[in-house]
């Protein structure tokens, strides 16, 4: 498995390389945006770890360029408070993001999640889910808690289905809204928040401390399965 690490800071590239190589990945490096496109063309990596703030073509532009002809999973590295670029990268097709400073464990977990999704391909129906004592069978549209049926509204069910299809991966407000409601509702983050809150009340053991339906502030939501 070949990973392209794009960052203009050598110590970060080096640390990530050492960490990934210890876990059996093969690593190629690029030091800026232009270089990233060249190295990508030469090595065809299976995952790209992409810093956003770089000289000579920033991460957003690289993301746009790559998505024009490749579905390679892209994991974006950003600093906190750079919400706008982070969301823009995700909406452009980046698969997930990590906020600097991050731990190697987080990086590995995110990578595994995006790779799993890439391998699953174009699945339209997620696997049955077990969230604590709540079980969801998407094919049969059945939801039970400790064996007793649990009622979800069609919209709640649809939100959960989208998140389950992208389990462990962040979905932006815009992505969730346009998939569940349609493109014309892509800006209505408030509606989404209300439905997610209701969904939490039904499936989370403690809604004020969500274990599965995690909020990514200003960005979107992520379904965590606790299988790590």
């Amino acid at each position, binding site marked *: 498995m070949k990973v392209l690490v794009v960052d203009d800071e050598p110590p970060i590239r080096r640390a990530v390389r050492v960490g990934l190589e210890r876990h059996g990945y093969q690593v190629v490096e690029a030091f800026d945006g232009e270089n990233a496109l060249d190295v990508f063309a030469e090595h065809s990596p299976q995952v790209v770890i992409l810093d956003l703030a770089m000289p000579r073509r920033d991460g957003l532009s690289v993301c746009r360029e790559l998505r024009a002809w490749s579905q390679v999973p892209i994991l974006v590295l950003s600093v*906190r408070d750079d919400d706008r670029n982070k969301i823009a990268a995700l909406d452009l097709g980046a698969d997930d993001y990590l906020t600097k400073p991050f731990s190697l464990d987080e990086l590995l977990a995110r990578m595994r999640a995006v790779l799993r999704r890439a391998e699953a391909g174009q699945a339209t129906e997620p696997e049955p889910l077990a969230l604590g004592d709540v079980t969801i069978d998407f094919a049969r549209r059945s939801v039970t808690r400790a064996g007793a049926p649990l009622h979800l509204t069609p919209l709640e069910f649809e939100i959960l289905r989208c998140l389950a299809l992208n389990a462990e991966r962040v979905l932006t407000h815009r992505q969730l809204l346009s998939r569940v409601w349609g493109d014309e509702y892509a800006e209505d*983050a408030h509606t989404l*928040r209300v439905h*997610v809150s209701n969904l939490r009340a039904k499936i989370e053991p403690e*809604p*004020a*401390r*969500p274990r599965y339906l995690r*909020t990514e502030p*200003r960005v979107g939501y992520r379904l965590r399965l606790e299988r790590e």
Partner: protein
Amino acid sequence: MSSPPTRTASPRLRGLAAAGASVALLTVVLAAVESAHHVANLSMLYLLVVIAIAVRHGRGAAVAAAVLAFLACDWFFVAPRFRFTVSDPAEWVALLVFLVTATVVGQLTALLRARADEARQREREAAALAEASWSVASQFERDAALAVVLQRACELSGAVGAAVVAWDAAGPTVVAHTGAQAGLADWLPRRPDEAVPAGAGLLVVALGAEEHVGALVLRMPAGRPLEAAARRAVDSLAHHAGVVLQRDRLMQVEARTRALHEADRLKTALLSMVSHDFRSPLASIKASAGSLLPGSQPLDPATQTELVQGITASVDRLNRMVENVLALSRLEAGAWRPQIEPTPVDEVVGLALEPFGPADNSRVRVDLEPGLGEVWVDTVQVAEVLTNLVANALRYSSPRTSVELRARRGHGCDVFEVADRGLGLPPGPVDQVFAPFWRGPGLGESARPGVGLGLAVCRGLVEAHGGTISARRRQGGGTVMRVELPRSRRDEGLGGG
């Protein structure tokens, strides 16, 4: 207007004309009366005319009236009549005495009048200066004080417009003005020591002796130069204007100094924090990293893990401090506007509790008022506030006690409270804990490193929401931190769609 010399000469000519006319009129009247009755001491009547002319037209006219009266008396009423010769020597004496008396009385009367005029003028100046002084002393607002000075300067000098002008490298600036201003800027000298172009009708009076602070510029009506007496008063008013400008400049310097002083205090505190709070995690990282290097004795895996976990914890702490320093500087620069949106309260609370590990989380009891629904907040910022408050509560209380996080509806606001059974607030005003870099007495070098910024950041964020944050001592021991956020934005938000 077109012939200034005539205008300047006219008062004197008018005086002479008045003298001639008065004497002639009296003579005609007396001649008419004389033909019927003899009038005794008619020269006394001429004396009255001389006094009247002296009062109205001054010394020159009085002398002219005296001489004319002398001649008229001689010509019309002293025998032989219609000649200047005098037959009776006694008449000569009488005529001469009249001339001398009339001249002297005329002079004295004119002098008195001049004195009275001068006194009135001084009184006006004194009143104007007193008012200007009072305004300068009582009015700390520059423009208001200058307006009074300018108005009085116009009244005293007869100017049609006045301005206070200051010079800097770029040229003259009109600081304040009153009355006619048209074209003033074109006439102003480019530099304070330049002469005013002749014919501009401008009078430039320096505001102060030392350095060129600026000038009082008067626009005089054509052909009416400033009288010497008024000049004194105008100088004095210019001095007042100079005082106002100087004081304004000093007040600005003082305000800047105070801001710099505060910034300097924060910077000093930040430096001491960097030197202490930042160094201890850095030291622990460096020591742990050194221990992990291969040495003579191999480390057992448990110790290695422990060291690495220590490094990670130190990095997290450093990262948190950096976030707080950044947040504080952005808040102080007013550059961090909250993005207020309706948000389910459990989402805010969930986000606030996310950074805490399972051990800490098990100590936090969450109590949300049923049906509270949504709060109108910037989710990230308010979660940050609650995280800081909960972190403090956990840090300063025994691990065996719990911390309560409550949310409920208040009057026109949403209320969040974080209550602990910890050390409690230090003696003294409770609000001191919100000052940047404040830390509890005795905590300075303690084993519980604080950053002294958390609560200052909380206050900044809450105030950016238009809310309030307060601390109080909890009954039975401990502390309650209370955050109130206004709900009034609900309507605005809905209006905006």
